[in-house]
């Protein structure tokens, strides 16, 4: 819910900045209203597409990272055991 509300606020700011240029009137003009409607729809669709692409790409990325991490840890072997203390024998 928090993320949704943050997106809502960001959308409001973005669309206001882009669509509302004429501050000679207190009310929104017809042109501004249609710009705002298009802006909202575009941002929502862009967000959906972004999410879909991200969800598609992330598993492969994580797999690749895990494989790289495994490759780095593998050849070096487990860390060497510490030398026995000098007075222990």
């Amino acid at each position, binding site marked *: *819910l928090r993320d949704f509300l*943050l997106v809502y*606020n960001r959308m409001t*700011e973005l669309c*206001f900045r882009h669509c*509302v240029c004429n*501050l000679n009137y207190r009310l929104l003009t017809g042109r501004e209203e249609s710009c705002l409607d298009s802006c909202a729809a575009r941002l929502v669709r862009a967000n959906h597409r972004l999410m879909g692409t991200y969800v598609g790409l992330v598993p492969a990325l994580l797999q690749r990272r895990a494989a790289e991490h495994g490759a780095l840890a593998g050849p070096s072997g487990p860390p060497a055991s510490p030398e026995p203390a000098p007075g222990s024998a």
Partner: protein
Amino acid sequence: MDPLRAQQLAAELEVEMMADMYNRMTQACHRKCVPPFYKESELSKGECVCLDRCVAKYLEVHERMGKKLTELSLQDEELLKRMQQGSGSA
């Protein structure tokens, strides 16, 4: 979750979001109405009127965005339901 606790959290979230909206509105209207010439400390009448209108418009835009978002998310839900029904019946 305890309903009272949920209500309290919702109220806190609303206050936080209103504060965030206020900050964004301040930034946007300052950018639109107050040019970066700091020769005089007083705001001109035009700048004051611009700020008043800017706030009114921003709040209207905020309301309109909310309605539009609700409308679009309802449309998406309906589409998802239809798709699920379609795949279920197949």
